[in-house]
């Protein structure tokens, strides 16, 4: 039932090969002009390698001429050198590009690409802090992930990193303060966080202002940095799965699917259709619950107590429903590489379908009421605008990008798993890019997820819910999943024994916090918490 339009097409490769010319070496497919591509392939991964000095040119060709989107920078230490993998993807032709650049670990300098693909900015800062890679001509390298209690030159993701001396580090940390730009009389910086007055996650924001408008927002993240990627190194797949599920509990299913997908690519297996279909249902259920949670915060941030309470009721009902069908309120422990830990019976899927339909009408009713509440709309319309051009440049993803009319829902752009088999659904796009547009996207996605569950839950293919065993294999792959907050990518590198050599988590919250200043700056002070609520991002997911 695979639609041929949804499969990879070979025709795109020769054009790309011509555009890139001699600046790259094609590693896979070795011959781009005659690459055999099966009609059923979901996507084609093109592996290229280039010299560091050619990197800006190649990236410019890929992003500007060939319309690729930047996905990730994943450095990996191999012996005495770094392999820096730049990942790009494109919906047309279903292509993924992995561009490998090898640099010597003794002098690890690569040209910065963030002037070309601005989305790479934080990836480069992160790689500098964690690996000690230098990105020449990047305007702002230095403390990013690691805060002031760590000495400069400490790179925890390096293989030889030893944390023991740091635990007793006696150097008094240098107190950190943000650089300010305002010199007007009366200008001041308002610090917020990292501990909040309510249930918010740890992060700090410095709002530079002269009293009314936020002129500049300086975020300080990674208070919650648990070094998940480092902890994963050398551990078994089962151990890493526990971490991947738990580093961001509110999108646990999406990340578990993403990791499993990468492991399944490496071991070259396909989970049984029933497992894929149930995964889809769990992911959509999680999306509904996540969006309801965001909408509750949105209503709460504007002091709309009654709507907030009514969304809360729906959210708790979804949590209870998740627990009834999956045994866990956040659906932990169900998705495993190769399928599902246990089957979900048809009568429970019936319950899921019924409950979600009930919720759907209640959410629609709430939405229609909110649309006519002027005191609510006044806080969102025309406020916190993320313009399309900048959204594109920053490579934002998920509901935030869709509110600015930037398509790229991976369920549609690069369908994975069972998304090939469900009826086409429209991407929830809005044009204004303001807070209200983001709210509409969330409500539309709740509705479309409910529709997907309705259309799928009662026609799940019978059969096994998991493969009996995974054949261990070494290799490297990129999992790509549309998490509730947007596109998530997991770079997984397995040793032949099946242990994880390198795990890279590229999360939608990390991607989107990079663009949060668009909505926060040049708007009034009191809009800040409201805009934060409409972004709906997670620190745990961003900080890892």
């Amino acid at each position: 039932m695979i639609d041929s339009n949804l499969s990879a097409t070979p025709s795109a490769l020769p054009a790309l090969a011509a555009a890139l010319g001699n600046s790259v070496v094609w590693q896979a497919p070795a011959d781009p002009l005659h690459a055999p591509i099966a009609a059923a392939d979901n996507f084609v991964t093109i592996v290229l390698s280039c010299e560091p000095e050619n990197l800006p040119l190649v990236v410019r060709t890929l992003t500007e001429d060939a319309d690729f989107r930047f996905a990730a920078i994943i450095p990996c230490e191999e012996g005495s050198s770094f392999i820096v993998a730049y990942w790009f993807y494109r919906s047309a032709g279903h292509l993924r590009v992995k561009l490998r650049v090898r640099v010597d670990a003794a002098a690890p300098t690569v040209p910065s690409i963030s002037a070309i693909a601005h989305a790479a900015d934080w990836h480069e800062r992160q790689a500098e802090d964690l690996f000690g890679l230098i990105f020449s001509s990047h305007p702002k390298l230095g403390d990013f992930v690691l805060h002031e209690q760590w000495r400069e030159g400490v790179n925890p993701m390096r293989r030889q990193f030893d944390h023991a001396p740091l635990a007793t580090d006696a150097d008094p940390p240098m107190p950190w303060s943000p650089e300010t730009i305002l010199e007007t009389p009366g200008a001041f910086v308002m610090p917020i966080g990292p501990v909040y007055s309510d249930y918010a996650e740890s992060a700090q924001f410095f709002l530079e202002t002269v009293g009314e408008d936020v002129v500049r927002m300086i975020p300080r993240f990674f208070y919650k940095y648990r070094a998940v990627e480092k902890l994963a190194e050398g551990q078994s797949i089962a151990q890493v799965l526990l971490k991947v599920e738990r580093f961001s509990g509110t999108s646990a299913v999406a990340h578990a699917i993403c990791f499993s997908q990468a492991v399944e690519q490496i071991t070259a297996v396909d989970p049984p259709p029933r497992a894929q279909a149930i995964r889809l249902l769990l992911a959509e259920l999680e999306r509904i619950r996540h969006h309801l949670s965001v909408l509750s915060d949105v209503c709460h941030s504007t002091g709309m107590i009654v709507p907030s309470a009514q969304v809360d009721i729906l959210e708790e009902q979804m949590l209870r429903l998740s627990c009834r069908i999956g045994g866990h309120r956040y659906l932990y422990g169900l998705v495993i590489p190769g399928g599902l830990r246990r089957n979900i019976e048809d009568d429970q899927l019936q319950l899921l379908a019924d409950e979600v339909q009930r919720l759907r009408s209640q959410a629609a009713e709430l939405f229609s009421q909110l649309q006519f509440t002027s005191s609510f709309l006044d806080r969102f319309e025309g406020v916190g605008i993320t313009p399309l051009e900048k959204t594109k440049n920053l490579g934002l993803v998920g509901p935030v990008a869709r509110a600015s009319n930037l398509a790229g829902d991976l369920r549609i752009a690069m369908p994975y798993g069972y998304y090939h088999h469900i009826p086409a659904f429209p991407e929830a796009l809005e044009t204004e890019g303001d807070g209200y547009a983001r709210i509409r996207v969330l409500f539309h996605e709740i509705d479309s997820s409910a529709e997907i569950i309705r259309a799928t839950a009662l026609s799940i293919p019978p059969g096994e819910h998991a493969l009996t065993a995974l054949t261990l294999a070494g290799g490297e792959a990129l999992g790509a999943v549309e998490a509730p907050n947007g596109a998530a990518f997991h770079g997984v590198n397995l040793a032949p024994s099946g242990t994880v050599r390198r795990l890279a988590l590229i999360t939608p919250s990390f991607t989107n916090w990079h663009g949060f200043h668009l909505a926060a700056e040049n708007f009034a002070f009191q809009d800040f918490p409201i805009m934060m609520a409409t972004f709906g991002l997670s620190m745990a997911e961003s900080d890892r």
Partner: protein
Amino acid sequence: MANWFFSGLFSRVVTTRYPASPEIAPGTTPGRPVGQQANSELAASAAAAMCPVGAIGAHGRDTTVTLSQCVHCQACRQQPGIAWQNDYQWAAAIPPSDSHRSQPVPRAFKKSLHIRIVDGGSCDSVLNEIKQLGKPFYNMHKLGFFITPSPRHADVLMLTGPVTRHMEAALKATYDAMPHPKWVIAVGSCAISGCVFGSDLMTALHSPPIVPIDVVVPGCPPPPLAILHGLMILAGREGELPPEPAIPVVPADPELRKVTSPEMSP
């Protein structure tokens, strides 16, 4: 024009009757594994071996579960030698013999405790479960528990997450800013044992802990009712809890704050 007044007024009351009576609605708790007597020593050691976080122990034919290390991965759900108990009253007080334990909550505080939350690097789902406590289904305010916007007004520090190195200073500062008497409740297995994120690398679970902990609520994440149970225990209001299931007992082990359920105790 939407009339929120009436739409609020005509919504039915959903708030739980817990702790006046047990909450029996399905889906309020994921339950927990508990140890039992297996058919054979082999089955007991097989149960212990299959737990990915080492929360299950085997002693002869008996299995034990250290709930503060359990991450609710559901791997042992159908495992012989492990029972699955669908309760939620599993919070536990650190015994007063522990030198880190604060004095019991005095009578004057019992009906009104103000809570400050510090997120020490949690996964967000714990915070989301705490958030549910202030929402219609659980409404902890009716029991006299409130979230306060200032540490100066706080009686209780609610700690989540394994305490990252970056949050260590903020946690200490928050605790120091709170007036005496003060208590700490650790919510979630990672706040108690570090769990899958506990390492010396980026989290700082020292022994003794950075702040003295009085009550632990294990779970990954603990459901809202378990957190509510922890708050009731902290406030010394065990008498108001529904009679069963019984409150788990904590062995007087100051180093490892392990929680075992009564049926496993010798």
